[in-house]
């Protein structure tokens, strides 16, 4: 994991030297920070990475200034949706390992007790994880249903690859 702090004076210098759009990346974790980076560097946009891991609400805060924290139900619902979509994308076997880091990211930040995260990490299948999440935040079920009704599954929207993955192109 990368750690350190960004020196946006360098970003500002780069922006002054080139005539292509520059995206400033590094330590953008809040709307105040994003606006200050955009103002000081004159970059076209900011990039958020670690700040958005398990925390899409940070994006909402940065773009719209929407500061309300998500409820537990909302957090659990987004995580359930994320688990389902990732399993569809990667398959259960890869997804169950891949998702483990996301449990900590979503459930941390004071949203759920640490023990609960530990408990999820012990579970074998993503089905069990989903059941446990919905049991922990019962209201999440309705939110998941609503989200799934509103948002089409990635499976319906994903384009076929123009090459066969078997036998080469």
């Amino acid at each position, binding site marked *: 994991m990368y750690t350190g702090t960004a020196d946006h004076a360098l970003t500002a210098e780069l922006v002054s030297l080139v005539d292509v*759009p520059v995206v400033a990346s590094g330590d953008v974790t809040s709307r105040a920070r994003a606006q200050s980076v955009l103002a000081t560097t004159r970059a076209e946009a900011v990039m*958020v990475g670690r700040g958005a891991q398990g925390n899409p609400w940070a994006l909402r805060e940065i773009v719209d200034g929407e*500061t309300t*924290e998500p409820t537990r139900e909302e957090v659990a619902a987004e995580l359930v949706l994320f688990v389902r979509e990732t399993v569809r994308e990667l398959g259960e076997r890869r997804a169950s390992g891949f998702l483990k880091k996301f449990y900590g990211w979503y459930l941390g930040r004071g949203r759920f007790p640490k023990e609960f995260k530990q408990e999820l990490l012990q579970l074998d299948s993503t089905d069990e994880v989903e059941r446990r999440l919905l049991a922990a935040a019962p209201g999440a079920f309705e939110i998941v249903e609503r989200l799934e009704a509103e948002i089409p599954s*990635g499976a319906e929207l994903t384009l076929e690859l*123009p090459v066969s993955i078997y036998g*080469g192109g």
Partner: protein
Amino acid sequence: MTTSTVSPFLRPMIALPTGDSFESLRSAGFASADPTMKYSGRLLGIDVAEADDGTDRDDARVHPLLVDDLGVREALLELRDAVLEHHLLVLRVVVLRVLRDLAELAGSRDALRYFPAPGRSQHVQLARQLLVALGSEDHILHKTPPETRSGACRPRQRSRNGSYPATTVKTPPEYHPTAVIDLREAWRIGPVEVPTRLVLAPMAGVSVQAFRRQGRRYGAGLVCSEMVSCAGIEHRNEKTLGYLRVASDEHPLAIQLFGSDPGPMADAARMVEAVGADIVDVNFGCPVKEGDEDGRRRAPARGSGSRVPDRGGDRRRRRRPGDGEAPPRRAERLALRPSSSGRGSSRPVRRH
């Protein structure tokens, strides 16, 4: 001092109303109190210095008596400069009362109704002014500077186990009060219009389709894929090609490539275009440790590093395959690499 531990997890969630007064309580650590609370026999309140440790904001609601406003406030006053703070609080209440009474008295003596008695809504306004005082910077309930409070989504920025690293960054924010930039403004990268000024970063092992689509829903204007190996695309590696699956609601989308052979990189870029991505993003060196593991991922950055200063009109030409001091071709690399046989994914696949 006695300590009791209550698992907040056994209790149903209670949503807190939001508003000035509750926000200010929460930021002082009350509403987000740890499962562990300390009671002192004398105060029967919460030791604020300790209450910020933990995780659950609803736990404070579990002990309604303990977080009774007045009781807590008095306990706090004792912790701080009791006399001064208390006087200030009393003074605020008195001033507001006087203001209200004045308005009322003036109303009764004013036949022409230039100063009518405050209506119900005005009473509410006046009462809210008291709450504004509670929410102000120098109020006793606020130990933290206001900028960290308005920092929004996350109530606290500590991380003990390092599991949520974004909060460990302690850069003091710079302030530019005049700068009000609309992040909902569209901008362009060449022909691609990006609807907001926020880009979701390409992150290896994170930026899967679910992550990108979620990011789009929450306001990211441009999303990026994980880094995709050009060699993997060249060999039609099944797992690599899986990274190229694009959903139609992800646009605009950048797919990130890494590689060192110009030829396969050009082919991979064409492939990225064919799968429907809007932007080809080339990884010229990234801070992740894995970047070095097989010697190829950072190769473009190293290879071109020495040539950057004299970039001119011929920059493009230099990238052409087989040109100048191109990195070693695949066959040469395989010959140079000591343990190339044991790696399933990077083994060259015969494609016919």
